[in-house]
């Protein structure tokens, strides 16, 4: 099942038990992301959008249903180095330099760092941190740390990329800049991407398709295609077509 490098969820459910009470985080979620596509998940807090991502990464196990990443079960896909991930927090290891933090996935996967030397340098350059290779995370600003996390997500040349509100902690100005950079990076790598976000503008600007979710229980309520041509430029943020799509998503979030 599933495509070579796509993501597929079939009737996936997940419930948590906390303090003796059963909470239904996800109910019968169906989602298929074609290879090379960019999908944004958007919804209110607690609708289970991050849970979908954690399930696909094998960080949680589903209570029911089937999940495939590049046609494989999540544990196999992540252990095979097919995936890349960036979280809302950069989650850098404070004792590792920028370079060593970018190389962390290689250490986890047990790969030799040497063949990746050029790739690491190239990624650090790509995210605009050339010259900071040996800096420690404490010496960087919040935006710079987040860029290290993006570089780290790309180091294995992932076919599938998971982004969990990667710019959620950044201010609006920096966030726009990072969105533009991310689009450029994505267009070069063409990895299947699943982005979890709170930002309607971010979702419309980046994604081919926006999946709107509702909570209690977490479920998908609408899927909206974004057929704006690429590369999308910063001016797009002021385009009437862009605003129409934003309004449509906002409406869907309100339950229309």
């Amino acid at each position, binding site marked *: 099942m599933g495509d070579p490098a796509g993501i597929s969820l079939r009737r996936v459910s997940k419930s948590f*038990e906390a303090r003796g009470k059963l909470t239904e985080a996800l109910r019968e979620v169906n989602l298929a992301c074609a290879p090379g596509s960019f999908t944004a998940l958007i919804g209110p807090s607690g609708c289970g959008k991050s849970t979908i991502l954690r399930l696909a*990464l*094998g*960080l949680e196990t589903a209570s029911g249903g089937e999940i495939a990443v590049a046609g494989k079960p999540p*544990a196999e896909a*992540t*252990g*095979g*180095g097919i*995936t890349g*991930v960036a*979280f809302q*927090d*950069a*989650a*850098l*290891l*404070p*004792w590792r330099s920028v370079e060593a933090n970018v190389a*962390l*996935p290689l*250490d*986890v*996967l047990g790969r030799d760092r040497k063949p990746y030397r050029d790739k690491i340098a190239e990624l650090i350059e790509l995210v605009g941190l050339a010259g900071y290779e040996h800096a*420690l*995370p*404490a010496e960087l600003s919040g935006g710079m*740390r987040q860029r290290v996390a993006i570089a*780290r997500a790309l180091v*294995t040349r992932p076919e599938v990329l*998971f982004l969990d509100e990667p710019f959620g902690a950044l201010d609006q100005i920096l966030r726009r800049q990072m969105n533009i950079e991310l689009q450029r990076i994505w267009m070069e790598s063409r990895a299947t991407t699943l982005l979890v976000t709170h930002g309607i503008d971010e979702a419309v600007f980046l994604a081919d398709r926006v999946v709107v979710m509702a909570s209690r229980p977490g479920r998908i309520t609408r899927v909206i295609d974004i057929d704006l041509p690429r590369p999308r430029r910063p001016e797009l943020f002021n385009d009437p077509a862009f605003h129409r799509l934003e309004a449509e998503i906002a409406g869907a979030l309100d339950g229309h």
Partner: protein
Amino acid sequence: MPSRLRPFVGPLLILVLWEIAGRFGLVASGALPAPSAILARLAVDWSDYPGHIFATLFGAGLGFLIGNGIAIAAGVLFALYPVTSRVARGLNVALFALPPIAISPILVLTFSDPVPRVVLAAIGCYFVTMTATLVGLTQADARSVDVVRAYGGGRFKVLALVQARIALPVILSGLRIAAPNAVLGSILAEFGGGGRWGLGVYLLGSLGRGEPDRLWGIGLVATLIAGLAYLAFVVLARAVTGSSQAVTVPTSVLRSTDRPRPAWQQGLIVLASIALPLALWWALLAVLKVPAMLAKTPPALYDYLFGLPGSPATQAKLVAALAQTLPMTLLGMVAGLAIAFVLALGTQLTPRLIRALLPVALVTQTMPLVALTPLLVLLVGRGPAVILWVTISVTFFPAFVTMAQGLLLVPRAALELPRAYGATVWQQLRLVSVPASLPYLFAATRLTAPRALLGVMIAEWLATGTGLGNLLNQSRGYLDYGMIWAVAVLSVLVSVAFYQAVVLVERRVLGRLGMAVAE
């Protein structure tokens, strides 16, 4: 005044007052000698010291290495496989709660020097370092752990890449506390008798002769050794922690991946946890082939307590001793904790208080209990008052430090919110500070209870001639092995029961308030 000199003013003032008090015999009719007199005596006695110091340090050092080695290995095991920590819980609590003085006679009668020293020093290190290792390994930032797991990293990868490095400073701070404990354990082993060398032997010998200046000298040397051991790890920890301070505030704690187990499995784990210490006790005696007359296995002890013609008399003696020991321990603890609680809340009002009290607290924490007790005996006499003072001094400082430092962790915003609505200082204390300090009050009670019992038993042994401590000392004199074992096991049980009771209340109260247990 140059600000560099300011920290030295307080201690200097104390020293001057001490000198005056000593010179004129102002305290307890000369029981407090002047620092100059203590130093002079130290110079006279100096040739005696190297042998005693070496004997104590050798046992402490070897025990420190062995005990911490086992502790770190155990901590890693418990972190990797949480179920093992639950099975070993009974053993861990027993090792933490057992008053070293209780098993000192057994060890001395069973083994030859330096085994008893090494064993007690190792036991003194075990719990502290094991807990530090476990806490250090499991407190790793959930987000960093997620990154490793998101690339298919298993528990060993997480351990090697994230947890080990994060745990290092925590383990070092554990070793810092373990070091004085090892010295204390080594000295307590000498209480069992038989030896010629060691600071404990020297102390016991001098106690009978009523020479305050020598007693103070030995006490200060023991404190200095323990303090230097403590300091060595402070320096080491500072060198390590420099680069590993967290960059951002963690937003989530590591969720337990332990799935809920069926009731029969839960029961089995609890049963195993209780059976493990007993099985180990039995197995050790069997493996070491200790003669049956010396060593009491669990059934032999049961027989001694309930099956022999003399058993009712034995039981009466034990109950009478317990009735003397327990009330004093509880009273002293409650007083010590209450004072600590009030003063810790006081630091919220005047933060300078904590800076003034912290150095004193550190000295008393590193001062071996055995050195402190004889000095208190000198100061307040051999009556029941000395027991009270020992318990208060044993509980007060650790409790104060735990609570004051805990309160420092309360976010500023939480403190300022009531103020922003015009709350008075008292309302702020009631609404924020008191509830916030509860986890630390419980932690302090839990952690100081066994120490309080140990302090009482030392005081009873050395000074008052009452209670469990005295019964132990007497039985040692009569070579009444059954009674020695009975007192040892009873005091461990009392200590464990008390610890367990605090844990139960703590979980219930904090659970209801939705707070986490502080380590």
